[in-house]
Every structure is written in C-alpha cells, then in structure tokens.
C-alpha cells in the first residue's frame, strides 16, 4: 500500500525501525527525538497525568525496542504503528485504574469535535476521507467515537458524558464503526 502520513518523513521512520530491530540504540533515540512530542500528547489525552503518561512512554519504547522486527515497512505506516503501541499501553493503564479520571474534566470539553478540531483531521494526510465519513454520522455518535479514541473514554463514561443510556451508546458506537468501515472502503 502507499505509505500514509508523512511521505518521506514516514519512510525515514520505517527505515529507522529496521535499524532499531537490529539493535541500534541511536536509531531508537532518533525515533524518540522525532516522535516523543506527538506520542506523549497521545498518552496525555488518554491519561491526563504526566507521571502516568511518562511511565506509558517508557513501557511503549521498551516494546518498540523488542518488537521493531515485527513492523513490516511494506505493509504498514511507522507512525501508525508507534501511536498504536502508545495508545494500547495508555488504555491498559486507564483500565487498570478503573478509568477513574473525571469524565467531566473541563479539559475534555467539546473541543475535540468542534469544527476547528475536525479541520485538524482534514489537514492530516489520509484524514480528509475519515473526516468526510465522520461527518455523515450523527453528532453524538461522532463525538462518542472521538471521545473513545482520543481520550480513552469507556462506554459508561461516554454514556454519562452524553447523558444517554449505556445500551444506546454501545450499539450506536458499534453501528458508527460499521458505517465508517463501509464509507471508507
């Protein structure tokens, strides 16, 4: 497939991961220098706690160090691979602590789904199509998907935040995902 976000930059990142897989620590450091600000932002959006997000980054980079050999530059995008590792590590921590963070945190706001925020999405390469497909969902459904992906909110937290019954939220999100898949295929 065509490499997604980043063009030459992403290709460089893939090449760095090949060196990391061979045990090259300087290459891992280069990955850190290039990506840590973006990745720390991803962990912070989920955890909203700098110390926990730093622990997640350490665990994630240990995994990158051990698993770089599994990254297939011919089939995947290096930046997607890295952000997935950080997201799963952050979600594990959020689950372990029972996602006790207040979901009425004003930092969550409605900002992620307002027009400006979705413009950010359109600006990202490959983001325009996702945005167009998200635009076709009902606003609450769109907001639920963004709150889950970006801020790591669970079904009950999304239900509380949108003041909707839990069962409704679960089936909406599932339907939303299926409609996104169809729209993007």
């Amino acid at each position: 497939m065509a490499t997604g976000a980043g063009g030459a930059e992403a290709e460089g990142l893939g090449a760095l991961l090949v060196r990391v897989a061979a045990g090259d620590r300087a290459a891992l450091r280069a990955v850190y220098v290039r990506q840590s600000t973006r990745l720390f932002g991803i962990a912070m959006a989920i955890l909203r706690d700098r110390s926990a997000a730093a622990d997640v980054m350490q665990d994630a980079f240990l995994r990158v160090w051990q698993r770089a050999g599994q990254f297939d530059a011919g089939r995947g995008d290096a930046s997607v691979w890295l952000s997935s590792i950080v997201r799963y590590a952050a979600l594990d921590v959020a689950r372990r602590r029972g996602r006790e963070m207040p979901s009425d945190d004003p930092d969550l706001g409605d900002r992620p789904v307002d027009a400006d925020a979705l413009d950010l999405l359109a600006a990202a390469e490959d983001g325009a199509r996702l945005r167009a497909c998200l635009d076709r969902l009902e606003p609450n459904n769109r907001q639920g998907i963004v709150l889950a992906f970006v801020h790591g909110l669970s079904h009950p937290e999304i239900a509380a935040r949108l003041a909707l019954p839990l069962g409704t939220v679960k089936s909406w999100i599932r339907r939303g995902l299926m409609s996104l898949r169809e729209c993007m295929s």
Partner: protein
Amino acid sequence: MSGALPGDPPGNPDERDALAGEYVLGTLDARDAARVTAALANDTALRQAVAAWERRLAPLSALAVPQAPPEGLWQRIEAALAPVAARPAPRRLGIWQFWAIGATLAAAAFAGVAYVPRAPAPRMMAVLVTGQSQPAFAAEVMPSGGLHLAAMTSMAGTRPQAPAGRQWELWGQAPGAAAPTSLGMIPMHGSTVNIATPAVQPQKNMLIMISVEPPGGSPTGQPSGPVVFFGRLMPAGNT
C-alpha cells in the same frame, strides 16, 4: 476464519470485525481487551482486521495535542534497554538532603518513637509480559517486602524457560529512577519462586523486568542481555 475467540459466535466475520474495531477504539473492558490481545498472536485474520482499523482511525490521533515529554524521560528509557556502558557514578547527596535526613532522624528521636522503616504495604502485583504482550509471570510483593513470582502457562501449554546456559535476572526500576537495580537471580525450579529483595523496597509503579544473563548475573550491574519480560507493580484488586 482461524482461532475463534472463546465466547464469540463462531464463524461470524461481522461480529469479529466489530470486535476488532472496538479493540482499536479502546472501548472494550479489560477482560475482553486481554482476550483479543491474547488471540492476536495466533489469529492472522483478526490481526489483519485490527491493523485495518488502526489504519482507518489513525488520523484521529491528530486531535491529541502534542506535548513535550518530561526532561530525562529518554535517559530513563535508555537505562532500561540493556545498557552496556558502565553504571553511572552514584549521585552525590546535596547538603540539603543531608539536612533533611538529619532533621527527620532528629525529629524521630525527639519524639521518642521507634522508627518504623516499613509501613504495612497494600498488596501490589504486576503481570510481566513478553514483547508480544503475552503474560509470562505474575509478580506479587510479599509481606516481607520481597517478590513472589509465579510462571504462567501460555495458551500453547508451555511455561517460560531461560535459554540453555543462561539465567534470568530480576530488576526493579522505581518511577523516576534513572536506571534499574538488580533484585537478584531467579532460581527457577517448578513454577513459583520467592525472591528476597533486601536492597530495594518494591513500590507502586515500579517497573519490574527480567533479563537474560550469563550464569551468575550481569557483569555490568545493569541488564546486559535482552529484557524478555516486564510489567509495572500496581495495587491489586482494581483491574
């Protein structure tokens, strides 16, 4: 479709793809997410479904506001990698730290109370996983302060084993510490072992690692072979 997940309708591709989507979205609870993680190792179709969802939803990451990580984080990461360099010189205690320690001891003496070094610790556990996120050991802090390790049986029915002629060494890295400290070698006969850790008090959020070392342990005082299992100590009971 290979390797149906336990509890899922067999041969229902839509259901499985929805599960993969919810896994990537992050809305599965801990138990279901762990089930998917475990199934990924042996289920190519599920792995492909997850990768496709990661690609579809990846642009949403742009909505997380980038933030510079704390100073010193790279040094922490590097220290956990299996450094070959010599152990860094111990940090000198500043005069204020001496003052603080002295003041604490003086206060304890003045109050005439016995200095109790260890408060009763809450139960603390870690699941040590492989690089593929497969659980390999459960570690629990013992009331004495040491660690109890229990090898976990994999889905294939095997238990973790050190490579022939090598031994496992256990390490702990406290949150914010620049480097891990050895907690001793792991003498593995049978499936559980208790390790006394007189030098280190296992604490919340401590990173526990197991590295592969020559017999007798790392010659450098830091992990010299690959770190094969790791996990973080967390209070038990709130998974």
